């Protein structure tokens, strides 16, 4: 059959189109039917927000000033998030791929679609084994959904191959925290930023990616804090910081080692804390002996004087807060970068006390909760280890299955695509993940998607990846379901339902259960709602490191969230980890850290250059990241008109010294090339970036996608891809690219 599908027709039918306020959303004086206290659907800050509902439509918002984390504050994404509802692109029914239809899809009755999915899963697993069907999920799902999908993969599909898009986000920090502290969670609530004498921010574009954290940092400064920012770009938070360290991309661990070297040589190490509460310091001290200020400066590109100043401020402070984000984590040695950061925190002894803090700034809405309860390939609920027999036995008991029936650890999200490419994985279910935009070297991802025997996508909009699906099932928007998520501080909060699902769309947990039923394996998949799923999750997490057993929906509402661990209903939760004398289920009273001896671990953090360093052919470094008005792969934010208008299209940010050599002026079309692909975008010529580095935001698809260029090198421990550095060359483009005629949000 001849295919008549073209991408333009698909976009015409399914978007992305831009929605703007109209009708009730533009009218003055509309009395809402109700106002629902809930949270933003985007980043890990999870700001409290009130949604105004009229006639089963979210018509606007009101700042929720009582919620303590953000006290009404919102970024532009939060302000306009309400426009994602009642959207013209919304999937209102199931579809199947149909190459005779110009859009590429034909409508399908929901029950038939479920039947087709079950039939395909059965066929593939029978012919190629259980692991030949994989599941890819996302960290924007509520914890109940993440838990249920993890259980579905292990119990219903019996596949080892489930992983999630947190693989692109938090896994380096998670792995580093587990190695050093035995637990993966922000160590402190954000209020501990306020009394810090030094706030150290490494690789975190706080103003654009975690805007609400800005106010905490500025308030610390009002209280007398010095702000140190480490970044290749002078981001808005860096502009007025007290000390800026313009690090070369991929060299963060060298900087931390150099700082620790100076702390040791100047006697700025808290030796009492190190002796009493840590192990492994000697080996690390020996390792950093070679990281003299001169060598550190040479490797990092940061002036020696600035390194010495940073070490002195950090070394002599009485209180401090160190935070980092993807800037140090998105590397082929991301875990080493994180361990380097933790080493200078442990050496300072400033953790586990008021005003003494450390945290990664979790990126995704449920980045924290989404990784704790079973959609990560090596983890079971309660942050349990799928390879640990005791952990398997506990979870198997809650699930009513034999421990032996649970599969072992699967492979990471990128490796799933390599296995698809090799023909080992033949079928895929994805939910809440848009890898065609978000994974590195994404031309490879596109080729792999076309090799699948069967692909089913569950989503509320047809994202770019789902255009390759055989069946599309209409899932639920954030405001159409309830459940919990865990935000950046480790605070478990409650998402409340504001409106009903439209058309044939339904809550994702119902869809998963419908597939289990159609497969003839409904046992364990007959929950009547998120509350019932949460109750089982609480039991499954009980006794684990991420213990939610004492958390209830009511307690969350009452306390404005509950910090895990919360091991019993009379326990208030644990805002600050590692307090002296605190109890945890691993140390059992021997110390505050989550190891049998209760002590934290120093880890030698070795520096290695990026997987692909610059050379004569590719002489510049490419780094990627976000802009404030867009979020991740843009499935939602590229459909919200005012957010698109704020930053319509990606631009290549470069220093005027570089632009001059290329004879490029601001706004010119420039082609960036790497060994994997090329991309032609307009230049943004600014002095706020290192002259040897260029930056492209990654939210756009197709020929505008930065991830055509990025490298699929991964950290050997966390498997996070190296989004933050690869070798690139630039040239002025002869003409505007073909994509210049598309609407800005399309690609």
């Amino acid at each position, binding site marked *: 059959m001849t295919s008549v599908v073209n991408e333009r027709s698909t976009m015409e039918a399914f978007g992305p189109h831009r929605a703007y*306020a109209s009708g009730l*959303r533009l*009218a*003055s*004086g509309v009395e809402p039917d109700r106002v629902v206290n809930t949270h933003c659907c985007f980043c890990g800050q999870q700001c409290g927000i009130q949604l105004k509902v009229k006639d089963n439509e979210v018509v606007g*918002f009101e*700042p929720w*000033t009582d919620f303590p984390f*953000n006290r*009404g*504050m*919102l*970024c*532009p994404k*939060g*302000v*306009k998030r309400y426009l994602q509802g009642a959207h013209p692109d919304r999937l209102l029914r199931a579809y199947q791929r149909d190459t005779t239809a110009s859009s590429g899809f034909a409508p399908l009755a929901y029950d038939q679609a479920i039947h087709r999915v079950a039939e395909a899963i059965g066929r593939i697993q029978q012919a190629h084994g259980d692991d030949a069907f994989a599941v890819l999920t996302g960290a924007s799902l509520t914890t109940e959904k993440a838990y249920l999908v993890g259980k579905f993969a292990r119990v219903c599909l019996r596949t080892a191959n489930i992983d999630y898009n947190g693989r692109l986000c938090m896994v380096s920090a998670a792995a580093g925290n587990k190695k050093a502290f035995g637990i993966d969670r922000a160590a402190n609530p954000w209020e501990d930023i306020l009394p810090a004498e030094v706030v150290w921010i490494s690789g975190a574009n706080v*103003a*654009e990616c975690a*805007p609400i954290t*800005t*106010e905490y940092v*500025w*308030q610390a*400064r*009002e209280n007398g804090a010095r702000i140190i920012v480490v970044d290749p770009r*002078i981001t*808005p*938070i*860096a*502009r*007025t*910081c007290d000390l*800026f360290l*313009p690090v*070369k991309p991929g060299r963060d661990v060298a900087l931390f080692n150099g700082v620790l070297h100076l702390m040791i040589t100047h006697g700025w190490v808290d030796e009492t804390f190190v002796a009493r509460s840590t192990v492994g310091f000697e080996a690390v001290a020996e390792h950093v002996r070679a990281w003299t200020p001169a060598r550190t400066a040479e490797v990092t*590109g940061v002036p020696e004087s600035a390194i010495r100043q940073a070490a002195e401020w950090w070394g002599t402070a009485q209180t401090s807060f160190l935070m980092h984000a993807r800037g140090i984590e998105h590397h082929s040695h991301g875990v080493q970068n994180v361990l380097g950061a933790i080493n200078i925190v442990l050496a300072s002894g400033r953790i586990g006390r008021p005003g003494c803090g450390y945290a990664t700034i979790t990126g995704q809405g449920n980045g924290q909760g989404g990784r704790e309860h079973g959609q990560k390939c090596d983890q079971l609920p309660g942050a349990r280890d799928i390879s640990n027999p005791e952990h398997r036995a506990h979870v198997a008991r809650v699930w009513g299955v034999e421990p032996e029936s649970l599969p072992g650890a699967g492979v990471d999200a990128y490796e799933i695509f390599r296995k698809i490419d090799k023909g080992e994985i033949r079928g895929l279910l994805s939910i809440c993940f848009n890898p065609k935009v978000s994974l590195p070297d994404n031309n490879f991802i596109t080729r792999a998607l076309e090799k699948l025997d069967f692909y089913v996508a569950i989503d509320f909009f047809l994202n770019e990846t789902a255009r390759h699906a055989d069946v599309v099932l209409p899932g639920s928007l954030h405001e159409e379901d309830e459940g919990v998520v865990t935000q950046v501080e480790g605070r478990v909060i409650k998402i409340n339902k504001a409106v009903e699902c439209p058309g044939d769309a339904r809550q994702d947990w119902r869809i998963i259960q419908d597939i289990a039923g159609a497969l003839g394996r409904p046992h364990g998949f007959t929950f009547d709602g998120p509350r019932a799923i949460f109750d089982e999750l609480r039991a499954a997490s009980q006794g684990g490191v991420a213990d939610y057993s004492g958390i209830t929906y009511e307690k969350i509402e009452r306390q404005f969230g509950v910090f895990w661990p919360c091991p019993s209903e009379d326990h208030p939760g644990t805002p600050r980890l590692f307090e002296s004398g605190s109890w945890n289920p691993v140390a059992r009273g021997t110390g505050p850290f989550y190891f049998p001896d209760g002590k934290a671990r120093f880890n030698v953090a070795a520096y290695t250059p990026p997987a692909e360093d*610059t050379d004569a052919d*590719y*002489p510049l470094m490419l780094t990627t990241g976000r802009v*404030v*008005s867009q979020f991740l792969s843009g499935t939602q934010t590229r459909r919200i008109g*005012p*957010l698109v208008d*704020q930053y319509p299209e990606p631009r290549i940010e470069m*220093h*005027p010294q*570089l632009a001059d*050599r*290329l004879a490029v002026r601001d706004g010119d079309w420039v082609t960036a*090339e790497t060994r994997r692909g090329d991309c032609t975008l307009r230049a943004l010529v*600014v*002095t*706020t970036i*290192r*002259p*040897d580095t260029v930056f492209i935001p990654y939210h756009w698809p197709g020929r505008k996608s930065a991830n055509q260029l990025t490298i699929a090198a991964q950290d050997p421990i966390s498997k996070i891809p190296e989004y933050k550095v690869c070798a*690139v*060359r630039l*040239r002025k483009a002869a003409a505007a690219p073909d994509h210049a005629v598309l609407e800005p949000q399309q690609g």
Partner: protein
Amino acid sequence: MPVAANTEFFIDPSRCIGCQACVQACEECDTHRGHAMIHLEYIERAQSTQTTPVVCMHCDSPTCAEVCPADAIKRTADGVVQSARKPRCIACSNCVLACPFGVPKMKSEFELMMKCDMCYDRTSVGKKPMCATVCPSQALHFGTREEVERLRPRAQPVNRFRFGQQWITTKVNMMAPAAPPAYIDVTAAMHAGPTGRRYALPVVGAGASG
């Protein structure tokens, strides 16, 4: 109900991160839905990420009202300068040209001058203005003077401005360094460049152009 006398507006541009939450939220205000009245400008993007938000300063003697030939712009007793009154406004743009802070906007589709009214629908019922409520950096802050003195010891509110020979006193405060000048000389500052971090680095591998 008037805006409570003990609550004031404080702008601290050194906190601004340019996120435009204020612009997006301004559009959501009930009195002018779909239209942002606030201004957010890059000082000079090529050199700096510095941005600054401008709301109506609500002058004691509003130039916009003084130059209005139709007497369409009113200052209520609580010191808030309101948008032009629709029945009176003749859309002449005198106010747009005359305002030293560049605040009023001529909406030709309505033949009406519109401007920031400090979210009068909100502030007159005890709420904060939309922009200052959502502002993630609190560069836009609405609260009591006592609160600001307690929370922000590094800066002092200033509400006297000089534009050439014109002196203006405003209801809205601008945060200035801890030992603030008696007034802010806007004309003198007009040609100053952006402030904040800059650095110069030689191009690594210069000559090996891509």
